[in-house]
């Protein structure tokens, strides 16, 4: 059986043009996907069974009911539970997560807080002048990649949205467009760009500010060298920006997680805003996990905020105080539920130590570093492969991921629903 128009649930590009060959309920071939996407869809090692860590400290296989029972008990008895992750699951599961958070009075936070969280903070300062990826494909004659390397992280981004394909107004595709990469090191993306600006580590803010100064007619204030780049190069880049018909600025964690963090984003957003007095310019964060954008969307429409502390019974949001790492660093969390992510591999050591100290429940199709410190492990179906669900592409486009094969695993949504039923009081909204 061949399934066409399948959507890849690997990265935030959500390529929706895959053809998947299924034989005996097994995916045997994936066409058009990149190696990352195909690798996920063709399958690799999974968690076999629900597990609970026994007194000897070993994970021991148990029934699904026992695992859900134990998970519910842990959460019910926690005073400061943290529900974290959510980047690689469906909006439907994220929605259940927020409801669970309400019932428990928990903090609900996503992987964005260690990734594109600063992007959201920048947007709160300046707004987000953006466009759908198809708009960029059809119109952009200048594409800037800043602090990102899509060739590795989003392998089909350039061939689908940001460069190679012809668009309505650019019938020769790549030949009609100029690529500029700004990064601290030579990357594969930089290597195929028309221009590469190698800036010093941590100088993004000053370089962006200098470009703003030049574009706003204050170029004489810019020193001869900024962030290791000559003023001539900056003048040249700002000329390119001003003279294009439609510019698109893509950025990654090189901008969000380097020195100055959200101020970098604030500055890039302001630069984009300024450029629109002269031409058309848009800016789009290259979001990593396939539905990390979706969590920001769902949490915002359900609670008003992109992450939320529900311990007061009402939404409370104060990043820097209630984000996952703030709580863990202060050793406030006394139980955690990690869904579809791997904080043990990505959080600072001190956070992980505190995470490991109290009971930890993991819901995930795959084993990862977090499994090693989990007390209850519940394996689930892979969204977009074994179960359907909604995900948001990096530009905020909602898509319905397909189910390609049957699975015995329950979905994240089903597991969360069972936990919700166990922890909620009779008659309460759930």
């Amino acid at each position, binding site marked *: 059986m061949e399934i066409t128009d399948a959507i890849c649930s690997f990265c935030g590009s959500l390529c929706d043009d895959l053809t998947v060959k299924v034989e005996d309920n097994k995916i045997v071939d994936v066409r058009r996907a990149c190696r990352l996407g195909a690798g996920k869809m063709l399958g690799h090692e999974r968690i076999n069974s629900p597990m609970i860590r026994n007194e000897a400290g070993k994970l021991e296989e148990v029934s699904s009911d026992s695992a859900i029972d134990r998970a519910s008990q842990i959460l019910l008895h926690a005073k400061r539970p943290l529900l974290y992750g959510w980047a690689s699951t469906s909006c439907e599961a994220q929605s259940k997560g927020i409801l669970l958070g*309400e019932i428990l009075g928990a903090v609900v936070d996503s992987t964005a807080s260690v990734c594109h969280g600063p992007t959201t903070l920048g947007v*709160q300062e300046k707004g*987000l002048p953006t466009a759908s990826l*198809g708009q960029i494909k059809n119109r952009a004659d200048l594409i800037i990649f800043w602090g990102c390397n899509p060739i590795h992280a989003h392998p089909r981004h350039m061939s689908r949205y940001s460069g190679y394909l012809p668009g309505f107004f650019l019938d020769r595709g790549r030949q009609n467009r100029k690529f500029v990469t700004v990064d601290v090191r030579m990357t594969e993306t930089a290597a195929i760009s028309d221009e590469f600006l190698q800036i010093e580590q941590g100088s993004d803010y000053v370089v962006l500010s200098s470009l703003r100064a030049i574009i706003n007619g204050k170029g004489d204030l810019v020193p001869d060298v900024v962030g290791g780049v000559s003023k001539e190069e900056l003048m040249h880049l700002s000329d390119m920006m001003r003279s294009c018909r439609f510019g698109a600025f893509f950025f990654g964690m090189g901008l969000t997680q380097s020195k100055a963090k959200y101020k970098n984003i604030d500055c890039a957003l302001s630069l984009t805003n300024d450029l629109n007095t002269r031409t058309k310019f848009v800016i789009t964060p290259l979001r990593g996990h396939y539905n990390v954008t979706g969590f920001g969307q769902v949490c915002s429409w359900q609670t*008003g905020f992109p992450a939320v502390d529900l311990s007061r019974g009402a939404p409370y949001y104060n990043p820097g105080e209630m984000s996952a790492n703030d709580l863990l660093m202060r050793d406030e969390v006394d139980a955690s539920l990690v869904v579809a992510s791997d904080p043990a591999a990505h959080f600072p050591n001190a956070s992980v130590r505190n995470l490991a100290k109290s009971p930890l429940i993991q819901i995930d199709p795959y084993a990862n570093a977090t499994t090693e410190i989990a007390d209850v492990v519940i394996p689930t179906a892979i969204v977009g492969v074994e179960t359907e669900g909604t995900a948001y592409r990096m530009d905020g486009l*909602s*898509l319905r991921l397909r189910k390609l094969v049957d699975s015995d695993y329950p979905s994240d949504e089903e597991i969360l629903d069972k936990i919700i039923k166990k922890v909620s009081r009779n008659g309460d909204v759930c």
Partner: protein
Amino acid sequence: MSELLIKNGRVFDPINSINGDIMDIAIKNGKIVDDVSLSPNTKVIDASSMIVMPGGVDAHSHIAGSKVNSGRIMRPDDGRSGIEKRTKITRPCSGYTVPNTFAMGYRYAKLGYTTVFEAAIPILHARHTHEEFGDIPIIDKGGLVLFGSNWQVMEAVRENDIEKLAAYVAWGLSASRGYGVKIVNPGGGEAWGFGKNVSGLHDTVPNFDVTPAEIITSLAKANEMLHLPHSIHLHCNLLGTPGNYKTTIETMKLLEHIKPGMDRQVVHITHLTFNAWGGTNWGDFESKADAVADYLNQHDHVTVDMGQLIFGNATTMTADGPMQYANARLLNARWTNGDVELEDASGVVPLSYIRKMYIHDIMWAVGLEVALLTRNPWQVLLTTDHPNGGPFVNYPEVIALLMSAQKREEEMLKLSNKMRDRTTLSGIERELDWYDIAIKTRASHAKILGLTDHGKGHLGAGADADVTIYHINPDRVDAGREHATVKKAFEKPAYTIKDGEVVAMNGEITATPAGRTFWVNASVPEEHNTRLMRDLRLKFRKYYSINLANYMVQDNYVKHPVVIKAGGS
């Protein structure tokens, strides 16, 4: 919930010409019934000395979808201003101008509204709108779909192929599970793709060789060819620009000779607060609401809504991308932009309307002038273009202003003198009555949307049992003088009843059923569909960033649909 009797209320049901009669309203299985002899255990609500109206209907509000959520994402400051805790039956709430989805449903219900239409859905993003609809409790919903800068539309207009255009409109409504045709700054969204705008009705849209006037008239013809329940719903060109009243009136004139395919207006022109402006710049800015009202008084093919300005915080959100960039630069405000490939643009800009800033004062007057100077109450809907003019929770304030010349005078004392000089408001003595208010807050909304035959906006037998009971005695209260009492009564209806179930009482939510979603399924002759699909397949292959197979809103997202059939002859 099977039976309910509302006894002895003063009923205002304009669609059935009931003007304050003392009547009983009987409800059975979610519908209004004629037979008031219900079974002995029927629940009875004593509504004596209270006003009974059909549930409120809002034909133009921005309640769900990518624009609204962009507003939430960029405005945690707004989120913090409307915090309410979770209760046994309600989810937690946040926000004032951009409330979370739960608050959206609860607050409308607490205000006596039971049906609300989202005013701008790009087809590409319709799935998102329906996801949010699914999380808005209680109220029934529907959505207007953006067609005004759409490539397929402009190509059909250029070819003067109204049949193919109608086929696309039908397809677009089906793809988005949408209800009607919205046009925002026609052609401007496309021009904004390269940072430009169109300068008026007869300017040419770059690269497409059509004019806004042609887009509007062609879409109106297609709309009537399809016999859609609602007319085209239009946000005029040059909105937000001094002197734009001329374009607004010229737009109305364009459509004088189009024959409606249904018993209703040919065009609904929205939020007049922003496009009945005179002057040539911000210095000589003045109201021209009188000129627009004059036109409305002589023509019945147009309906409008106020889009009333409310002093304080607003979040402006519209598909009018170029206007929003101009706004953001003018005010040095945060700016979110969202171009939608092949379809339209959009922008979101938070702002505050400030008393004594004469431009805002004049805008405040414009909405009221349009409503008060237009003689036919059915022609002007009460809206705030939520949250552009201000949040919908302020409707009671607008009701009180419309019912009381004294309140208007009291308000004007707080405003600049320029407002008095450059508007006609201080000379207007008209005070609307309860019947007028029932028209402007429900009956006319339902009629304009084409929903009266589908059970909305009235209390005739067979209508949906959506009823609001207000704690105010029209015999005792002189609305002109006791405007504070009026405002209070409309802020907290005694009962909001949805499908026969009491969903809110005195400002508290009592039940949270899921609402339905109206959408229009219009059929067109197969030959036109075939021609259309040839075009669309090419567009998806070459220009869209997703495949056709993943584009249409799947049924999973519309859990309680009401499908209204249209099309054919």
